[in-house]
């Protein structure tokens, strides 16, 4: 798994590729915690190149969304979510908890 964060003026973009499982999820959690830990709470997660995601990845998404949305200070939005990953999010009942965008540009523009 590779995690590539980029900081923009009004939000942060985190691009993930590869496989998110119990071995790699801590690395994603750290990248997101680094962003929220420095007081930035508008985050786009680009999942276009994610091949696999287990519930370990879901745990990171939900915990980051809780942190971002607290005090109405921001939001984690998801961009370019592959069908299989979306199906898992749906199975877990996560779809109502996130906004989804077909591409990064729309996701960044929404924040």
């Amino acid at each position, binding site marked *: 798994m590779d995690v590539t964060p980029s900081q923009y003026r009004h939000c942060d973009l985190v691009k993930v590729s590869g*496989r998110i*499982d*119990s*071995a790699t999820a801590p690395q994603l959690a750290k990248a997101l915690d680094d962003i929220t830990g420095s007081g930035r709470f508008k985050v786009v997660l680009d999942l276009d190149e994610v091949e*696999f995601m*287990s*519930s*370990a990845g*879901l*745990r990171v998404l*939900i915990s980051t*969304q*809780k942190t971002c*949305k607290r005090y109405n200070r921001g939001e984690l939005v998801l961009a370019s979510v592959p069908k*299989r990953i979306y199906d*898992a999010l749906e*199975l*877990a*009942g996560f779809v109502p*908890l996130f906004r989804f965008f077909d591409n990064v540009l729309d996701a960044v523009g929404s924040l």
Partner: protein
Amino acid sequence: MVDLFSDSVQPEISQETGTEFGAFTGSSVRSNRSIILTAQFENLDRVREFVAESAEECGLEPAAVYAVQLAVDEAYTNIIEHAYGGESLEQIECTCRMVGGDLEVTLIDCGKPFDPSLVPEPNLKAELEEREVGGIGLYFIYQLMDEVQFSFMKNLELGKNCNLLRMIKHKEK
């Protein structure tokens, strides 16, 4: 109930790389492959690849292959976290068989007994702040596989009690 390992050749155990072997166990079983890996998260890649190969060989659709990989990943993670109480050099055996066109995956560990009825069902409709992810792994296993059976029994060969998780994915007709 089957005796663990009783119908297969006990593979040599390698903690570094695991061991794959094939065995002929009867006319109804076309293929039977096992891998033994240590209870470490870094082995999730390996076990997912292993079951994907068998699932593809079995003729499952790509979405079903992914479902099997996700279920096995969740089960393997649960074994590490709950049966063994964290990562360790203890072993987990994964066996794939094709039975009548279906794929059967079994996972065996000799950690603490696991009782799925003690795991609370996840609340899939809770508000964000109340949402927990505990229990979702088990929920995924039940949702993604067609048959799921947990048992805890004496492994005659190893002389100790082990968890046996047996999962079946039907080939879509």
